């Protein structure tokens, strides 16, 4: 399996920069996801790796081979890059049977009929589509097309697999199931995978590492835990989930661990303990991230990092949970409680943050 290396890669369309100097290293066998809002340049990045779009700056290597380097006029055609790709539309060729669709990458590589037969069967079994080999392609459901697209992308054991929002056309239940299946398949085969999605849940459930992008740039690269719990900026923090972000001032700093600091912070009408991996000094303004799921209603216990008091201004029943909005002196807080918790509008309650759950990012 091959690694993929993007060094300072850019792409401009006329005067518009869609991808702006990206650095990314995908290790062999790793599953890396590009995550970001629509229009942030994920697809363009993926297409540059595939060779479908020419980079306008930087260098892309697959394995040890430089496949794209505009400065030296290197641009390897897509068919010479030995990749597998799953398109958002699946791009199942409608004039072929399922079998022919999957056999195509082998046929154009002039493999023997016996080998094609065997490999296609194996690939179709892998995605549990072997019963459909003789079906005409248009007679497939969305989920089945997606399986065929995956089988086709993997049939010749490519060095790298590229996927562009492969689950976005499926309904919610199928999306979760296909995601899990695909991930375990990828682990088993150990194929280097670059995956594009705008769905944070999908990104976190599947990836070894996530690349958060915005406006053609990378905001943060890290494991799902790092990205979710230790975002490096307000933008990353607010892109994942819908956190509370409170203004505060640093009043004390102390080292908690290598690369981790413990801050005493004070906001409007509250104070507490927050952690962070950036360096802030006393008196500096920061934003404190409080995730809704880390808040609970309570009588003040002895050992909390922070607590707020406020009036309930909205309460929405969601089946499994109940969402609440609280007006406090620090601003509005929203959080979740078990669904059957009795809570009247206008009631004044006290909420507290779980231990070590507050995270500081720079305020901008």
């Amino acid at each position, binding site marked *: 399996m091959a690694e993929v290396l993007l060094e300072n890669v850019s792409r401009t369309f006329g005067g518009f920069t869609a991808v702006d100097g990206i650095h990314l290293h995908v290790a062999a066998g790793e599953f890396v996801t590009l995550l970001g809002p629509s229009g942030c340049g994920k697809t363009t990045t993926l297409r540059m790796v595939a060779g479908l779009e020419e980079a306008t700056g930087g260098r892309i290597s697959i394995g040890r081979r430089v496949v794209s380097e505009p400065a030296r006029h290197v641009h390897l055609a897509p*068919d010479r890059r030995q990749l597998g*790709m799953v398109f958002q539309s699946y*791009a199942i060729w409608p004039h072929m049977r399922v079998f022919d669709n999957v056999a*195509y990458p082998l046929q154009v590589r002039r*493999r023997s009929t016996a080998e094609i037969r065997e490999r296609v069967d194996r690939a179709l079994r892998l995605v549990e589509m072997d019963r459909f080999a003789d079906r005409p392609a248009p007679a497939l459901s969305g989920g089945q097309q997606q399986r065929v697209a995956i089988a086709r992308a993997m049939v010749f054991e490519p060095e790298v697999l590229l996927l562009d929002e492969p689950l976005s056309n499926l309904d919610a239940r199928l999306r979760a199931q296909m995601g899990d299946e695909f991930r375990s398949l990828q682990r088993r085969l150990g194929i280097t995978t670059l995956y594009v999605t705008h769905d944070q849940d999908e990104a976190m459930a599947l990836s070894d590492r996530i690349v958060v992008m915005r406006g053609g740039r990378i905001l943060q690269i890290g494991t799902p835990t790092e990205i979710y719990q230790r975002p490096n900026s307000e933008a990353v923090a607010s892109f994942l989930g819908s956190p509370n972000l409170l203004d505060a001032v640093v009043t004390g700093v102390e080292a908690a661990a290598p690369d981790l600091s413990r801050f005493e912070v004070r906001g409007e009408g509250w104070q507490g303990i927050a952690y962070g991996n950036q360096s802030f000094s006393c008196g500096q303004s920061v934003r404190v991230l409080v995730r809704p799921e880390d808040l609970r209603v309570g009588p003040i216990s002895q050992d909390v990092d922070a607590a707020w008091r406020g009036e309930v201004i909205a309460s929405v029943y969601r089946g499994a949970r109940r969402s609440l909005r609280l007006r406090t002196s620090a601003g509005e807080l929203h959080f979740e409680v078990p669904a059957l918790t009795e809570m009247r509008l206008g009631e004044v309650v006290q909420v507290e943050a779980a231990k070590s759950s507050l995270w500081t990012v720079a305020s901008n």
Partner: protein
Amino acid sequence: MSTLSSNEVATGSMRLGFRAGRLMEGKAPRRLALAALALLLAFLSLYPLSMLLYGSLHTTPPGIAGTFDLSGYRQVFTWPTALLFANTVGISLLKTIFSLLLAVLFGWIISRTDTPMRGALEVLITLPFFVPPILTAMAWGMLGNPQVGVINLVWQRMFGSETPLINVYSYSGVVWHMVQYSTPFLFLFVVEAFRAMDPALEEASRMCGGSQWSTFRRVSLPLMMPAVITAFLLSFIRGLENFESPLFFGTPARIEVVTTAIYNSIHHQSIPNYQFASALSFVIMALMFLLVFWQWRMLRGRSFQTVTGKGYSPRVIKLGSWRWLTFALCMVFFLVSVVLPIGQLLLGSFFQFFGFYQWDMLTLDHYRSVLGNDEVWRAFRNTFLLGFGGASVTMLLGSIVAYVSTRTRWSGRRLIDVLAWLPWMMPGMVLAVGFLWGFAFLPGAITIYGTIWALLIAYVALGTPISVRVMSAAYHQLSFDLEECSRVHGAGWWQTLWRILVALAWPSFAVGWVLTFFGIMRELSASVLLYSVGSEVLSVVLLRMWENGQAEAVSVVGLMMMSLVFLFRWVQLRLIKRYVNAL
């Protein structure tokens, strides 16, 4: 990297594919190929166009030394010519209005009512469109002849009348013959527009309290307007170009339009007046250009949401026993526009003289003489040669132009597109006049005029705009992903072109091919100027036989041609059913 090595040992043909593919990706060879394409297209459109301008200023016929002056244009801007234009525009406007009314009626019957056997009726209503107009023109010339036409004979026999019922050699005859062709043409547009309409839009109007009639007037009709306007203008333009109807029914009654005036001033004057013909051609083309431009301006920004081709199943109105009336209306149109002319050809072919229908005058002589006529056989051979060759070349050219303009981002593709579209505004007759000058102007070593190539070139030029349109529509339906997916999974440029694009677009190619073939088989106005001894085509031979008064032999040839048309139409319908709808 193991897969790469197996690539390296690929067979020879594969290597060729790869290398040619690389070639198309290289900048210099691509520019060369594009330049060659642009030159070819310019020869087919820009060249005759500029030669037309040259010819309109030139005092003598093509190939003869002369001087330059404006006398051609001076002759165009006179009262008789103004009348000519008024005639042309008036006839075309009239026939377009009549056919549009009929087309909307039939479109509504077929798509919105429970009239029985609508599928079959649709095929029958559109059938006249595929019959070469020269055939029905000659048949109607016999049917509606004031002295010996069958219709008048029957009328006089039945009602003892002295005066004939109809006379096709008149304004109404010209209009009537055109209506037979524009109705199916407009019908195709209108019925599509009716079908593509989201029924929810009409249901919403009904829910808001609108009656069936006010819903039709205030919702359905406005929604169809963009499609109807396009169709109206297209049909009007085709009316201006029309040659057969005014030639057959207008000329004997001294009714002249622009096309017949061009033809007459070249063919039916002791000294052919090429300068006037060219000037007239140039002016009518300028007029068409303005029309097309106006149409483009008017439709720009209008959305075509109603004609997206989504498969709605519109609400069908239950007509009760009235549905037999609507059925009868459609059948009458079919009977009058197809069955009657065929019947006349049959009748004419078996009697010694047309107009004298007595048992003792039954004969097979005409069949014998036609089958023994070398000229007819040669014309058959030429027509088929040109039909097959012309349709293939035209569709190939159209596929390439459409590919360049819709599937690539190569610079220069706009120019290619415009060049290929130019002949759209040139009536066949005008293009032929341009080519007459163009061929005479070529260096002496290249003789095209007088050979079958002259016709081929004109047919390809005339057919290219339509073939580009057909293929563009086919390509538009194929997402780019399908091609890119093939590239990523290891196929080269040529392989992708062949195995994905061609494999997916060929049914449209075939349908377009048959359309172009029909177009060539029916073509008269360009052929009649560009043919010469040895390169006659069927339509020209028919015209000459008709002018010599051989109506009976004409009937025989016409019947043979008609059978071929029906055979091709049947094959085409089968093809569409099987492949185009399946995708």
